[in-house]
């Protein structure tokens, strides 16, 4: 991703100068402007200054040092996942707020799985939104993977139950379950999600094997509350961050990585099937500060 970020432009304006309190404050501001949040930004800037305070420092050096600070935070969260591996059927549930990219991410993963020859089933668990079923069906058709659905308005938990029974009976490797977008403060909708998880557990106490929270890179500090709520309700096991191809660089992920021990699996970088990449702490951090762009 090209150096279009505010952080990049800001750093360029800093030029070569002494790393004093003023410079630090500016750095902190730049991190805030990348959604790290005031507290995390302050800490990252302070860490950076530990060994370098009062020293002359150039733009590129600042960038690299910042990237490395941020990468240190994210590195432990880097975890590539291969859904076609492990128990079968492996049951993977996708959750998140409205419009974050759940259905598209499932479509992308499905396309990959097909290449790997996994026997998979997609489940149209969003029985609420207009044309949500049709949307997932298009992705399933593209990938050549069957999609199980019920008419709009049907009970999602019931559909999920039938899908898992079918997966067991047909000895499938993998079930990818789409869910309706829901805001984490809506108790009723969160209870519905809880019910889906409960129903899955009824058929397989070890499932869902993965609960993937899909986050949108444009989101600000609210992402922290999303992680907290979906973790409590659905037992999130991993994260995906979408829309990394825009101007937002998803800096709130740094704050999330500090607060939660949750692996980050993938980033989305576009709307096409191939626009999904394994998460790399180093690449993410560099993109955030505009190194090697």
């Amino acid at each position: 991703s090209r150096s279009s970020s505010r952080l990049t432009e800001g750093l360029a304006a800093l030029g070569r100068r002494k790393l004093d309190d003023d410079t630090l404050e500016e750095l902190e501001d730049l991190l805030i402007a990348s959604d790290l949040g005031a507290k995390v930004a302050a800490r990252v800037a302070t860490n950076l200054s530990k060994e370098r305070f009062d020293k002359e420092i150039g733009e590129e050096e600042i960038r690299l040092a910042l990237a490395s600070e941020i990468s240190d935070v994210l590195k432990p969260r880097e975890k590539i996942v291969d859904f076609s591996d492990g128990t079968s059927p492996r049951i993977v549930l996708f959750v998140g707020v409205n419009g974050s990219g759940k259905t598209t991410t499932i479509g992308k993963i499905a396309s990959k799985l097909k290449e790997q020859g996994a026997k998979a089933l997609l489940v149209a668990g969003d029985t609420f939104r207009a044309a949500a079923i049709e949307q997932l069906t298009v992705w399933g058709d593209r990938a050549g993977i069957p999609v199980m659905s019920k008419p709009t308005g049907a009970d999602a938990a019931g559909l999920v139950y039938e899908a898992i029974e079918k997966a067991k009976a047909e000895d499938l490797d993998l079930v990818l379950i789409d869910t309706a977008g829901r805001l984490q403060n809506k108790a009723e909708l969160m209870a519905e999600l809880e019910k889906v998880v409960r129903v899955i557990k009824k058929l397989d106490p070890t499932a869902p094997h993965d609960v993937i929270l899909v986050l949108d890179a444009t989101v600000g500090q609210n992402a922290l509350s999303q992680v907290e709520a979906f973790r409590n309700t659905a037992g999130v096991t991993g994260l995906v961050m979408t829309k990394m191809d825009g101007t937002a660089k998803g800096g709130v992920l740094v704050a999330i990585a500090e607060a939660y021990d949750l692996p980050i699996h993938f980033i989305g970088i576009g709307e096409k099937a191939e626009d999904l990449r394994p998460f790399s702490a180093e690449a993410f951090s560099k993109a955030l500060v505009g190194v090697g762009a």
Partner: protein
Amino acid sequence: MFDALSERLGGIFDNLTGRGALSDKDVSEALREIRVALLEADVALPVVKDFIAKVKTRAVGEEVIRSVKPGQQVIKIVYDGLVDMLGGEDADTSLRIDSPPAVVMMAGLQGSGKTTTTGKLAKRLSEKGRKKVLLASLDVRRPAAMEQLAILADQCGDSVSSLPIIQGQLPADIARRALNAAKIGGYDVLFLDTAGRTSIDEQMMTEAAEIAEIAQPQETLLVADALTGQDAVETARRFHERLPLTGLVLTRMDGDGRGGAALSMRAVTGLPIKFLGVGEKLDGLDTFDAQRVAGRILGQGDIVSLVEKASEQM
């Protein structure tokens, strides 16, 4: 949150009693807390800085009112400043839809809520405004985007229709066909729902500008997610540069986000915020209310009564 803020401010002002006016130092300290509060609410940093500078000039030297805690007095000044910056108490939130067929174009990032908002506005105009409305999807990219809009049109009732889908047609051609259909069919309003796009996707931004050129919309609304972080300024600025925007819509205000993006986007574009999306259903649409949003950015709490109390005494 508001309580926390007013407590934090309370501490700063505790030893202020007895002096005549708010000093530079007192105000600066208070504003540092307010700065953090605004950042936590996702107001974009440049906007926060501007705002803090303005409030500071307003607050320094202000007479301390005996009966109100100085912290609350500053909050009142901050709150008024926010309301002001959001467009004031009686911001213009109506749509210009005279001269039928009036074209309304919807634009924004992927997944921001354009299609849903199109449905909501159509329902409102047909029910409250007795308008005959045509919806056209120019989204040839997202799977089932056109079907989504057609389903929403159906849910809106008899006076809302959707343009028949012709697979394989380009957005600009769909726009022309829609304009024609709106004229011939005697529609009052035509909504053009566009595909989501990032502001740096040159090809897609050019496409959007071209659609606007062809359709000459009376209203072009930027639909944005209220949960957006610091990127709000960038997105608003870039869309504003390329499209003849006339207003903003902030969706997902039914979430627990503090909605700082509203302030950011309003500040960089100067455009009125016309509507707030407050739900997934078609009736989940509110007209914009600066006071409500200002209170929310500061953290809901009991701001209104507090501010009322403060203003009675000021």
